């Protein structure tokens, strides 16, 4: 900082500008723009240059912009992480683009190399930016506001008047006044300098640090998280061990011991739907009533789980995700013995819960001749049937108003013993034969609850006993979310401080004029031009003016306004 007190008259003198620059210096800790090439020689010079580029505001700006552009493709192309089924569909529909899209990792944008590169560079830049800024800020906290520039009237807000008080009195009063308004003040020769609003910088640093905290929290969460799904029939239960899950995903540092030991049974499932109007059938409320046990042998507690209200168990959350129906089906063999009775969950495929599934009878069946066989049925279930003659097996309403189950029957080998994992909702008929009706067609029938279906040639009887409900739950553990939340709150607080607090400086100068009257000058300078700056200066000037009122009746050459009458 060079002071330019030697400069004399001209307003457009370049050193005047630098005097103003000095007055505004250190008002923020933003890094200076640096357009220069590498300094020094060799690798070190280049590394230093690269580092300076990376931590400059301009590169931060470019990286930020790239980050926003880079996030866009992930919203236009389906993502594996979000919905793998949609990805498969997209690939089928746009086969031409698939190789290119795969090369660009377009199905995994948010974990792709290029996206990671952008945000990692950004965060390195951020750290490289925060560290020096923090030091600088600490320095500013212990520093003093810079002295008054020579010409205060060149600053954005300015006021002046003449008073009969002595310069020393005025300055002493100005200092008290400013200190009383929580300005940091510094007396100079013939002037007082004051500064306020350091919290702005503090807020800005807190905000940027909070961004890093959030990133760390997310990374932590990704590494240790686990997420599993489970379909639970009414009356049945679930215990939180790996083997009980239908499907399970986890982060690379997850270990099965992290699963908290708890269990629950689904006692009841309530669903209500819009009964009429244009949105007939839209779901209004889902509630799963469960009996929950914490720990291996905790006391049973009644709990409710709703769509927006997960059940929280130390670190894990149990979410209600979906629901559906499970027709209860029994099979009687030719000798009249009930060899199978179970509730078979069906998978809904539309909003009115038209569902499909498969009934598989792997054990205990022998045909009329005593030959051991397996039975299989393709099943369609609708909770509200359109009515006889309306043809389709598509449900008209999601609730159980007119439930109908349609079965078609097969016998032979289910193929479940082959060791390959099987989809429980689909029947693999490759090693099965159709039961035939009188016309030689596949034997099938629509059943109402309580109705039976006799298989051809006395092969047995199938009965639609009743209907159970099921609900699917997702059990997630996402460590680090508390930290992420804390980071988010700090970020918002820091932002508010950074954007709402003005960092500004005020100078007061009082010197004795030729005629012995004191000339008071006040000026204000802020980080950005704000309407509040002149306002505040006006208030300060008014307050100071009360103690050092305008000298009456002075001979002025400038505009004298309002001297009428």
């Amino acid at each position, binding site marked *: 900082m060079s002071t330019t007190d030697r400069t004399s008259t001209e307003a457009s003198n370049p050193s005047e*500008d630098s005097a103003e620059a000095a007055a505004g210096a250190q008002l923020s800790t933003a890094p200076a*723009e640096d357009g220069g090439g590498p300094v020094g020689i060799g690798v070190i010079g280049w590394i230093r240059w690269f580092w300076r580029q990376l931590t400059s*505001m*301009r590169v*931060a*700006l470019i990286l*930020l*912009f790239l980050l*926003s*552009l880079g*996030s866009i493709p*992930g*919203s236009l192309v389906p993502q594996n*992480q*979000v919905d793998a089924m949609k990805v498969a569909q997209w690939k089928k529909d746009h086969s031409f683009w698939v190789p290119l899209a795969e090369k660009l990792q377009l199905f995994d*944008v948010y974990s792709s190399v290029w996206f990671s590169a952008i945000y990692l560079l950004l965060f390195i830049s951020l750290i490289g930016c925060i560290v020096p800024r923090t030091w600088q800020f600490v320095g500013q906290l212990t520093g003093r506001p810079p002295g008054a520039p020579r010409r205060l*009237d060149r600053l954005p*807000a*300015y*006021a002046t*008047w003449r008073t009969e008080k002595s310069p020393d009195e005025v300055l002493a009063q100005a200092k008290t006044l400013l200190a009383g308004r929580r300005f940091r003040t510094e007396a100079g020769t013939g002037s007082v300098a004051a500064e306020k609003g350091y919290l702005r910088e503090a807020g800005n640093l807190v905000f940027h640090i909070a961004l890093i905290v959030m990133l760390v929290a*997310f990374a932590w969460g990704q590494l240790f998280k686990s997420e599993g799904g489970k379909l639970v029939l009414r009356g049945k239960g679930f215990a939180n061990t790996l083997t009980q899950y239908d499907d399970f995903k986890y982060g690379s540092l997850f270990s099965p011991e992290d699963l908290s030991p708890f269990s629950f049974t689904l006692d009841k499932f309530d669903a209500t739907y*819009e009964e009429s109007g*244009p*949105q007939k059938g*839209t*779901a*209004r*409320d889902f509630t799963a009533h469960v009996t929950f046990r914490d720990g291996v042998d905790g006391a049973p507690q009644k709990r409710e789980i*709703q*769509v*927006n209200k*997960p059940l929280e168990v130390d670190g894990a959350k149990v*979410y209600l*995700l979906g629901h559906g129906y499970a027709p209860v089906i029994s099979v009687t063999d030719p000798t009249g013995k009930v060899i199978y009775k179970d509730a078979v969950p069906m998978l809904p495929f539309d909003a009115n819960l038209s569902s499909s599934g498969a009934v598989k009878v792997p054990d205990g069946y022998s045909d009329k001749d005593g030959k051991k066989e397996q039975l299989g049925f393709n099943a369609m279930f609708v909770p509200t049937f359109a009515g006889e003659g309306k043809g389709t097996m598509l449900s008209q309403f999601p609730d159980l108003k007119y439930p109908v189950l349609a079965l078609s029957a097969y016998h032979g080998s289910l193929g479940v013993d082959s060791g390959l994992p099987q989809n429980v909702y689909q029947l693999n008929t490759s090693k099965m034969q159709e039961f035939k009706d009188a016309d030689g067609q596949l034997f099938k029938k629509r059943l109402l609850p309580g109705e039976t279906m006799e298989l051809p040639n006395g092969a047995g009887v199938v009965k639609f006993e009743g209907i159970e409900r099921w609900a699917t739950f997702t059990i*997630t553990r996402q460590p680090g*979310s508390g930290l*992420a*939340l804390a980071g*988010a709150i700090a970020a*918002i607080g820091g*932002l508010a401080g950074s*954007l*709402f607090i003005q960092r500004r400086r005020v100078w007061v100068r009082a010197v004795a004029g030729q005629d012995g009257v004191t000339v008071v000058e*006040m000026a204000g300078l802020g980080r950005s031009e704000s309407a509040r700056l*002149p306002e505040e*200066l*006006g208030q300060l*000037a008014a307050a100071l*003016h009360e103690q050092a*009122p*305008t000298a*009456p009746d*002075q001979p002025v050459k*400038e*505009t*004298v*306004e*309002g001297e009428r*009458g």
Partner: protein
Amino acid sequence: MTPLAAEVNENLAQISNYLVYSSMAVYTLAFLAHIAEWIFGSRSKVGRTAAALTGTKAAAAGAPAVQVRGKGGTAVLDKPKVVTRSTNGTRDVPDGPGAAGGTVNGDLYGRIAISLTTLAFVIEAAGVVSRATSVQRAPWGNMYEFSLTFSTVAVGAYLILLALKKNVRWMGLILVTTVLLDLGIATTWLYTASDQLVPALHSYWLWIHVSTAIICGAVFYIGASGTLLYLFRDSYETKLASGGTPGRFATSVMERLPSAATLDKFSYRINAAFFPLWTFTIVAGAIWAGDAWGRYWGWDPKEVWSFVTWVAYATYLHARATAGWKGRKAAYLALFAFACWIWNYYGVNILLNGKHSYAGV
């Protein structure tokens, strides 16, 4: 719900529709009054901008003026006056006189337009409230309801700024035009009969997250219109300063707007003031998603575009803090950011279906 209550509610929903249509009628009148304001205003000859940019520099940088106001012989002294001065590097251009151009007739029509806008605002707000009452929930369950609230909030913000004596009258015509557009789209394409919410929306986070989202959108819209006009006005001033003569129509319109510096500052302040609220909106949304779907952030299209919008506004704020990026470049970033917001509203809701799907769009 008893049948009687249902009927009452249906009536309320119907009343809400009437109110919305009535407000559109009044907004149309306000629109016409604004047009009259601009037309009458065009008859004035101002030329202040041109004078400031091309004429001789006023003695602004002269010695400090001392103001003394006296009554009678004894000088009763007022508080000292603050002289403001723009910092180096910005043009020192006075603000235009506004649409009315200082003409009495223009001003009269301008005032009529504002009164009509206020009336329309009250009617529209009543429409929103009766819609909310008819379903006994927050009136933000579908796009029709969002659009209604969106324009209500935008006009409300404008009226508040007017009441605070901020220089925003220049916005009147643009605002009323777009409000009519928004309501037109809402009533013709987005209309959804009033009804209950799907379970995922049953949460007090609806009140928090959606209300702040709508407020941010409405206010960012006001900021974006300032930015857009800034770009026009800036080209106009640049042309004048370099000795060109802009067309007569451009001159007539541009001259009456505030100066480029004022417009730029206006939109910066609006965007900066509401960026923390937008950040809060996203955080609140993440918390809600954590409750509703079991994950805080899942890169659902809506989430992606909120993030893009957020980063774009952050880029804009950074640009303002960086020497070489102030002015037009920053303005383009601000417009990009707002375009992302709008796309997140119309585009994502209608074209990209993610988890954020609402009953009837």
